[in-house]
């Protein structure tokens, strides 16, 4: 009888260990997957840019500075690999694109062209997708980091070779500063 009880206790403990271990591994994998999703969306945005720049150029030839900013930011974004680098390049490109769309505001013919309208829709949905992919990644990092730091999962973090991960933070001056209100 005692042997059966002892075996049952050991069995339950083993199941508990497995559950904790698997939870950490699963959380770690979802962080990887959600980072891959950010990269997919950034790539999509990057692919839209040449077409967008060409379309705007057709109407607004004298805005070379804005075009250059977009092209440089895009080049930087394609070479980044670590979370921090990708995030920094992403922020720069978001800024540059905002500049490009602001330029477009000044050209009514451009704004009315169907090509530009469909590009604008593509770009805005991709911006949203990038933003949501970031948010989903950060939620996953938050869950993983909580698990790594809290009992009982924290005991297994070393064994599972899972450690805290970096948040995806975009340097965006516009979201840091309070918006200017003009009347």
């Amino acid at each position: 009888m005692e042997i059966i009880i002892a075996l049952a206790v050991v069995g339950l403990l083993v199941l508990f260990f497995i559950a904790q271990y698997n939870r950490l591994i699963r959380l770690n994998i979802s962080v990887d997957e959600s980072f891959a999703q950010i990269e997919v969306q950034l790539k999509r945005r990057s692919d839209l840019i040449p077409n967008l720049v060409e379309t705007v150029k057709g109407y607004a030839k004298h805005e070379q500075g804005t075009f250059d900013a977009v092209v440089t930011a895009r080049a930087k974004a394609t070479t980044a690999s670590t979370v921090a680098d990708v995030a920094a390049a992403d922020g720069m490109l978001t800024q540059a694109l905002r500049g490009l769309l602001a330029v477009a505001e000044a050209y009514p013919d451009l704004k009315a062209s169907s090509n530009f309208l469909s590009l604008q829709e593509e770009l805005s949905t991709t911006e949203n997708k990038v933003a949501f992919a970031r948010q989903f990644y950060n939620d996953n990092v938050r869950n993983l980091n909580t698990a790594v730091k809290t009992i009982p999962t924290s005991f297994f973090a070393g064994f599972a070779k899972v450690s805290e991960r970096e948040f995806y933070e975009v340097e965006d001056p516009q979201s840091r500063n309070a918006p200017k209100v003009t009347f």
Partner: protein
Amino acid sequence: MATQDFRAQQSANKGKTYFLLASMGLLTGLVAYAALTYFGAGTSTFMVPLAVGISLIGVWGSYYGSDKLVLKMTGAKVIQREDNPELFNVIEEVVIASGLPMPKVAIVVDSAPNAFATGRDPDHALIAFTTRILEIMDRDELQGVIAHEMSHVGNRDTLVSAVAATTAGAIAILSDFLMRMMWFGGGRRDRDSNANPVLLVLSLVVLILAPIAATLLKSAISRRRESLADATAVSFTRNPAGLRKALEVLAADSTVVHQKSNAVAHIWIESPLDGKAVSKMFSTHPPIQERIATLRAMESLGN
């Protein structure tokens, strides 16, 4: 209650669902016990599993094939990306925010603005929109509605309502059987004379009231899942204003979807039966003004 962020809202609504489901289980136990007291072990060991079995078979079929069945019942047509690229763009955004797989998308030709989600699990999910809701809602509002529907998918609400419907169904069938046996079969079959008369009367009361109680619990569970879906939607979009405005549009619109079938009423974002709901307790949705107020409170928290 009024000043809670979406995380607190989510866990409160989940907790209440568990409590309600547990009450439902307790009620089933109570009915089984009442049957046992009133009819004795011989009859109830046969009747209770039979009632649960019938209910399970009935609900399981509609749960398992919910995506196809609901398409038939509402006349929704599945569409592809080419049919409405902009709608698909907004749906894909929410799908990325939720981390769920891409659902099937369907359109119901109807002059009332409404939407619903169904499917047995996230891999078989279907979300549908009426033609009218796509006409009158802007991008932010539509995003809120889609997030609410994807929340139902993520929270497995088809499963939750199937469990609730199975128990409520079993209780109704059981109570129905036993009442008929009482009228036509002359009451207790294996009468053992030492049964407590007070207990017998109480059992009878339980048998009569249980189906109503089960219906009330089922509606309460449905209302909790709606509130939960609103909170989860905010966790996806972090924009309570979008869903709040969408609900305001729905509240201002007095037209209701043409299929007023009771069977699928609970799946729409705005209940098509609300106009003539007998009372708040039987309604499958919380009052829309209350949902708007909760979202407004979340807006003031800045998330």
